């Protein structure tokens, strides 16, 4: 069981993702952006950072990298792909997830602990969670405001593809809980096949409560991913 974490030039959280997955018992390795060979990994994580400097638009250049030419068919064949922060932006740019991530409403970068509520746990990334669970996970981004056109949004909502929303500590979804102006407080969405999931908060920065914001709630998501990979093998 191996999970690949893609390293783009400008990725910043790729080593953090490998470390977090290893803390949770997974075998994780870096995949080089310039190499289209996924080396037979069982799941792919696209990490946070500023791939290719995030020039043009966040993730806009990364989607054309050789590794993505393999990640897209891997995802279309049902392979598990998790995009975190910049990785979420790359997934949107690559057309694997709908919508886009634009400049925060406050026009500034925000690094902070936020609460997100699990709206739907029926996907491989949330088997360790119940719907309605509130997770405390940090965000750190300047362009994390999720937007999508109304028709798409309605379809996603009906289909249970809005997976995480920024919420108050009690789980209620309120404008005060929205750190970046995201549409309907959306923090994470998945595709209709449920195998591709993108989120702005960083679960890899919340697996060890001794560091960072003092939460290990990110282990729920990364642990679910590991379970899914192990389960598929068994």
């Amino acid at each position: 069981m191996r999970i690949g974490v893609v390293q783009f030039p400008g990725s910043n959280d790729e080593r953090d993702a490998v470390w977090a997955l290893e803390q949770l018992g997974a075998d994780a390795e870096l995949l080089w952006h310039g190499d289209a060979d996924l080396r037979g990994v069982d799941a792919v994580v696209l990490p946070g950072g500023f791939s290719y400097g995030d020039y043009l638009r966040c993730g806009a250049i990364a989607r054309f990298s050789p590794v993505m030419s393999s990640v897209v068919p891997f995802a279309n064949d049902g392979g598990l792909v998790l995009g975190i922060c910049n990785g979420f932006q790359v997934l949107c740019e690559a057309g694997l997830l709908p919508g886009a991530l634009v400049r925060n409403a406050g026009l500034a970068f925000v690094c902070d602990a936020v609460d997100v509520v699990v709206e739907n746990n029926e996907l491989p990334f949330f088997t360790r969670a119940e719907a309605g669970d509130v997770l405390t996970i940090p965000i750190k981004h300047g362009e994390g405001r999720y937007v999508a056109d109304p028709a798409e949004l309605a379809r996603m909502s009906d289909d249970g593809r809005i997976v995480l929303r920024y919420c108050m500590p009690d789980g209620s979804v309120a404008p005060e809980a929205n750190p970046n102006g995201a549409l309907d407080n959306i923090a994470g969405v998945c595709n209709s096949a449920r195998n591709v999931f993108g989120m702005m908060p960083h679960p890899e920065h919340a697996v060890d409560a001794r560091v960072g914001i003092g939460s290990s709630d990110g282990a729920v998501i990364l642990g679910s991913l590991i379970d899914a990979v192990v389960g598929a093998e068994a």
Partner: protein
Amino acid sequence: MSLTGRDLALSLALTSDEYDRIVSTLGREPNNTELAMYAAMWSEHCSYKSSKVHLKTLPTEGERIVLGPGENAGVVDIGDGLVAVFKLESHNHPSAVEPVQGAATGVGGIVRDILATGARPVAILDPLRFGDPDTWRNRWLLGGVVSGISQYGNSIGIPTIGGEVKFDPTYAGNPLVNVMCVGIATREQIQHATATGEGNVCLLLGAKTGRDGIGGVSVLASRPFDAEAEAKRPSVQVGDPFEEKILIEACLELIDRGLLVGLGDLGGAGLSCAISETASRGDVGMDVDLDAVPLREADMEPFEILTSESQERMFAIVEPEHADEAIEVCKRWGVPAVPVARVARGSLLTIRHRGSLVASVPPRSLADEGPVYERPMARPDWIDVLRKDDPLALPRPVDLGATLLEIVASPNVASKEWVWRQYDYLVQHNTLDGPGGDAALIRVEGSDCALAVSTDGNGRFGQLDPRVGAMHAVAEAARNVACTGARPIAITNCLNFGNPERPDVMWQFAEAVAGIGEACRAFDTPVTGGNVSFYNETDGESIHPTPVIGMLGILDDSSKRLDIAFKNEGDVVVLLGETFPELGGSEFAWAIHRHLGGTPPEVDLDRERELQELLVALVDEMLIASAHDCSEGGLGVALAECAIAGAVGARIEAAAEADEAHVWLFSESGARAVVTCSERDLAKVRKRAGDFPITVLGTVGGESLAIEGVLEVPVEQLAEASERIPTS
């Protein structure tokens, strides 16, 4: 360049005497290219010509010191075969002219200094000083600097874990943007900025060389500011954090593969500095081919190529048989790497451009044999007038609760969360305590220990007494580190002063350096290096002398770390140390009365050291639950901050006589910390303290900070006051 010779020298900020010195070194008149190199390398910024004689007096030896001043950054042993590398540097002048790029390239520059030692940069801290936030210009500078640090620091994947933001009108025309970077390496990874081995290849790595930043060190950093400052904007460099990020990764891979003979960064004075410093240290010559340097504009003159301060470049020396592999590693990361020079026999830099020899100078004369000045010093008369104006004579506040709220809400004391939440303080997953506490703490991978880092400096104390002010800066930085449980081990510094050609400024500088030396000797925290920033003045007005100290500490067992927050209802609140009637230079005097006068609190270095040792012992024996040092705003602010952080109040019974309560609350006496412990452990705390004076103040609990007979303020109200954001 239509000027030549002496006229050109003068226009490049060299003096007539310095020109004569160049002529006597070379035994001939320098050509224009050579002159431009000397002007850059002999600038105050690069040569430390006014500060050297004083800096020599600082203590630099210690059992943990692996590399001290003179290298790119100080290197200290942290055990387990690991070293920590750290340095603090200024980017004041560029930031005053163009705050976003000035601050961004300040981050980029110090990060490359750390990288040049072979270490992975693991933390950034930014001590910042601005004019009062009530003018649009100061807010523009503040917003720009914060956004520059945020854009650049976040993009290169290094956590910004601390720093300071302070305000005083003295910095209105000349803000201070100091940046500290910390790196970690194994002993084997340590690199030296030294060129050796005849025939070895010198690679220029990274960005193309352009016309940005030409004259940065001589025009911007080494002259006073005036109304024409805006016209200096073209001297400010422009940064590209993506180039820096891939440059960092490429260099770290070159180091991991053991491909390097030497590594240097290109900062102030650009290529001139890199070639002359590495050649001088290795006692070699170098043949440099300027045609090989990748340029942004084809028609750049030799002097422009040599003094350009284009960002995101490094200088690597490799053996010829490793050159191809090194270039290949860089290529994989998307980093151009081009051979631009060869190490040569002899001791001459021989620089060619388009087939002709454009410069032929001894590297040592550029890098190490610049002028050294013992500038005249004089204690200014105005300081006596200032020191006689004792704030103990200021009117006593009627409502001390309201006064405390006003101080908590003052720009200097108020929470800076709105600043640091724009910084990524989490990346690299080692942040134990980020910004907002006494010192920031990062875990060291491959070890149980943590590094504690704090930056401190109080310009008001410096103005009243530069020597005592500097000692306070060292003492406060050490206290902050010790409050987490870490043992202070070494410092770096950034000395921000006015024009060294003025005797009163030079006196302030000499006094401050003496104070730093005295404190560092007393604490056994050697000086590993640092940076001097002179000419911080606008239209003839100097800034307050502002030595900023970056203190590094080690906490052997990172799981024992403490923060400032009150934890448990019923815990006993204890003051370690004694409070004296000392309001000179205090936040109370400034925030409430706009008063700066009197003498700063006395410094008792022995007492400070005892306090550091006591704190380290109390944390190690797990006898206390929180610790916070008393500094700006005194005991009153310290108690308020502990309560806000813990979201719980305290009932304080012990207080001074009612009519002296404001002095007791807001005095900024040194060598003090507020700690809490359980009732059960109090006796052990007393025993451990021994002769060190401690006072039981009261107990943690309730929803307000209540000081019997003095004030009672709800914690929620204190938090609200602290978080009031200056309007923009």
